């Protein structure tokens, strides 16, 4: 099944989801680690994660380590399906041209 997804197709959001898709089941990535890996500012990453969380493609968990807040991220099953579907849609577009 393929479906072009306007939410995912934005460049930074696509990179965010691809990076999170590299995590194995049960793995979670720290917010700062993801920002550094992708070369995004905290504000930029935060804004995109908000959109992805609203679409239920990403799970954002906030905890405290001592007094320091920590945000960890993982892709949801819905997000994996949406990403796979979007990638298939891109391949289908390429095949049809």
């Amino acid at each position, binding site marked *: 099944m393929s479906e*072009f997804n*306007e939410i995912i*197709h934005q460049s930074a959001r*696509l*990179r965010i989801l*691809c*990076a999170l*898709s*590299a*995590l*194995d*089941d*049960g*793995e*979670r*990535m*720290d917010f*700062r*680690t993801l920002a550094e*890996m*992708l*070369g995004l500012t905290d504000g930029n990453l935060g804004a995109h994660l908000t959109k992805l969380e609203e679409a239920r493609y990403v799970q954002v968990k906030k905890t405290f*380590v001592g007094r320091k807040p*920590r945000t*960890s991220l993982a892709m949801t099953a819905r997000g994996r399906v949406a990403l796979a579907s979007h*990638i298939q849609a*891109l*391949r289908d*577009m*390429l095949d049809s*041209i």
Partner: protein
Amino acid sequence: MKTSPDDIKKTLVDLDRIVADTRRAIVALHTADHLILWGLIWMIGFGVGQFTGGSIPWVWLPLAAVGMVGSGWIGWRKARAVSSPLLLRILCFFLVLIGYAMVWAVLLHPFNHHNFSVYIASVFLFAYVVGGLWLGRIFVGMGLLITALAVFGVLFVPDWRDGLMAVLGGGALIGTGVYIRRAWTVRE
């Protein structure tokens, strides 16, 4: 939405690259600092051995203790960057490694300068080859390189064996750690 075929091709290539780069970056996150730490320990342990006529257990035991505490601290810190169920497997790996080191320590006792150097190299070989089965060929390569250096030293330059291990073996570990820390990132 208007997207050219070239744009789509480039996007698909970029997506595959980002997934592969992220996996490597996670491996680098969990391994680079350990390599640098143990490279320094290697340099100190074998460096002292070169100047004292051979590797000495009373130098290596505290160094190994420092290394294990250091690796534990590094592992704890990095787990906050990417938490993973793999960490339990890594803990089991360290327990197996300690068991391996203890079995051979008992079998080779009493140590002399000659067999202690070889013993140290064999423990590192075990660690990097077994670890490399999970983490990548570069670590298997490291284990084999260290073994080759140890064999070369024992056979051809026995008087400089420990110095060779300190400089080349320790240097290789540190160099690999620095390299993967810098190079295994998500490329733009």
